[in-house]
């Protein structure tokens, strides 16, 4: 499955997955670059089609994942360790929570933190925009989009990965979760296909958040330094920042990256505290409680509302 050559450069890849994902990704890129308008229309059409025809599947699947994970936790299976029976957790509760926090924070939050609630308030799916009721609903809807349902998805994937690799010593890839279904065949074409889907999903997902980030940075710079917001600037920004990231990878600064993300979260918390202090503090704390309550009580109905 993996080839190792003693001479430079060392190659340790799973050829089918690596090559096919690479080819598919670059093909998409080439298409987008060569014929941007066609690509744009195609994307729009695809997006519409998927929402219309497959929207029900997504909703059902996500609801299913959430239920699955909760049932698992509550049942007897909840006592099974993600590792051999006697293993101790790698990280203490505190570090683990801190790392989960940092996982929770991301570019998306920054980009949509203000925008999404306001959007839902101005143009709510039901009812009249611009009212206090709309405001409350806006937060409820926002919570729904960003709450446990999204994390249920991550939880399922991470759970399967952790379980099969730590407890059963299978490779830490998506295909291992299929072992109980197809046995050793996970090393064949089915496994490859599964991993390729995972890779494509990851690449486009990360690229999306990078894109969002760059748009945001562009806006920020435009705000501060009057740099115009255009695709050209954004592409330039991507190039610069990717170069920085690549440099850090090439120089093996992984520990530095971890420290950087800790710094990120600290900074984010500072910003958060600032907003709390400077904004309508009491109101915010009250609404926090109210929002959470609203969210929890309408969780069930919102889940199945297409």
């Amino acid at each position: 499955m993996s080839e190792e050559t003693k001479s430079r450069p060392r190659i340790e890849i799973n050829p089918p997955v690596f090559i096919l994902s690479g080819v598919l990704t670059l093909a998409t890129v080439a298409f987008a670059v060569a014929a941007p308008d066609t690509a744009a229309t195609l994307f729009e059409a695809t997006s519409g089609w998927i929402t219309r025809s497959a929207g029900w599947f997504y909703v059902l699947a996500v609801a299913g994942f959430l239920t699955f994970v909760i049932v698992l936790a509550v049942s007897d299976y909840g006592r099974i360790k993600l590792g051999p029976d006697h293993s101790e957790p790698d990280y203490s509760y505190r570090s683990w929570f801190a790392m989960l926090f940092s996982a929770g924070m991301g570019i998306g939050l920054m980009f949509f933190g203000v925008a999404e609630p306001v959007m839902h308030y101005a143009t709510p799916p039901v009812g009249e925009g611009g009212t206090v009721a709309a405001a409350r609903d806006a937060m409820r809807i926002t919570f729904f989009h960003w709450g446990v349902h999204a994390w249920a998805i991550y939880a399922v994937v991470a759970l399967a990965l952790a379980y099969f690799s730590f407890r059963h010593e299978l490779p830490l890839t998506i295909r291992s979760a299929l072992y109980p279904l197809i046995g050793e065949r996970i090393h064949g074409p089915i496994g490859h296909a599964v991993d390729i889907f995972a890779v494509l999903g990851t690449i486009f997902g990360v690229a999306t958040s990078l894109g969002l980030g760059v748009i945001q940075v562009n806006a920020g710079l435009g705000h501060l330094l009057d740099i115009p917001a255009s695709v050209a600037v954004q592409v330039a920004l991507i190039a610069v920042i990717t170069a920085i990231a690549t440099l850090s990878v090439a120089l093996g600064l992984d520990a530095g990256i971890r420290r950087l993300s800790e710094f990120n979260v600290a900074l984010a918390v500072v910003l958060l505290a600032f907003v709390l202090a400077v904004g309508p503090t009491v109101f915010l704390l009250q609404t926090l409680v109210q929002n959470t309550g609203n969210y929890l009580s309408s969780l069930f109905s919102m889940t199945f509302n297409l």
Partner: protein
Amino acid sequence: MFIARISRGRTIREFVVGVLFVPTGFTLVWMTFFGDTALHMILMQGLEGLADAVAADTAVALFRFLEELPLSAITSVLATVLVVTFFVTSSDSGSLVVDMLTSGGRDDSPVWQRVFWAVVEGVVAAALLLAGGLEALQTATIASALPFAVVMVLMCWGLIRALRIEAVKRQSLRVARVAPLAPQSAGQWQARLRAMMRQPSRAEVQDFVRQVVLPALGEVARELQAQGRDAGIARDEHGRAWIEVRHGAEPDFFYSVHPRPYDPPSFVLRDTSASRARALKYYQAEVHLREGGQGYDIMGWRAVDVIKDVLDQYERRPAGGEMNRLPRSVRA
């Protein structure tokens, strides 16, 4: 994948509770503080302009919002810096994930692979921006998520299956576990009692494994080989010793003895420094089968007792059938 890597050793329950509620909690707090302050501005302070600005260009929303608060110059810079650093860490972890997936799950692949994927991600982001901006990005994600959603359903199915097999196995083990000890001659029970009272050091346990367990395992292996089975013993530098019996089509049998530290009795004050804690730790000689530690200690046993235990476990190993769908690490 990050979440998976940091959660080794957690129980499923801890994991689910942590992953579902901790990041969500943070997100909700963030959304409330930012979103509701903005709404408050619009509703209570009459800043209609904010709503319009958001409608016009979502990207600017954050900054228009920050403008309304004091120290806006500083916070805007802060926010921009934050996004840049998130960008870098996202790209970094993203390239790591893709690298692991394309190299069979290993995290020690050569640097150029990660560099490749980091560059690819940047290129993809740029290309999609050119092809339609935000829309294109989101579409691409949704589109590639569809087949993955199907895969995820399969993953759940696989997980359920594996867990059920585990439950069956645990039950059968619980029923079958008998106190493992061979009949003893006079004077042996005192030796056993003494062994229980002692709290052996690491070196003592390692000696025990080397001098008593390993030869005992060797005898069993030799006997098995004489019966035509493919059996072998081995040891490693951590002081572990094991016997492995390969059955070809049927599941293999694996019995290993590890020196393992355990916490000293509660009346010994626990020292917080890790290295001192290690020095204080007492060791056991714990038996491991394919699925992990069995939770009992054979330190101080005689060779004949060890042999009996190996045979007991060998007898109890599950046969083929339903078990075939689990990797070798679970079949005893």
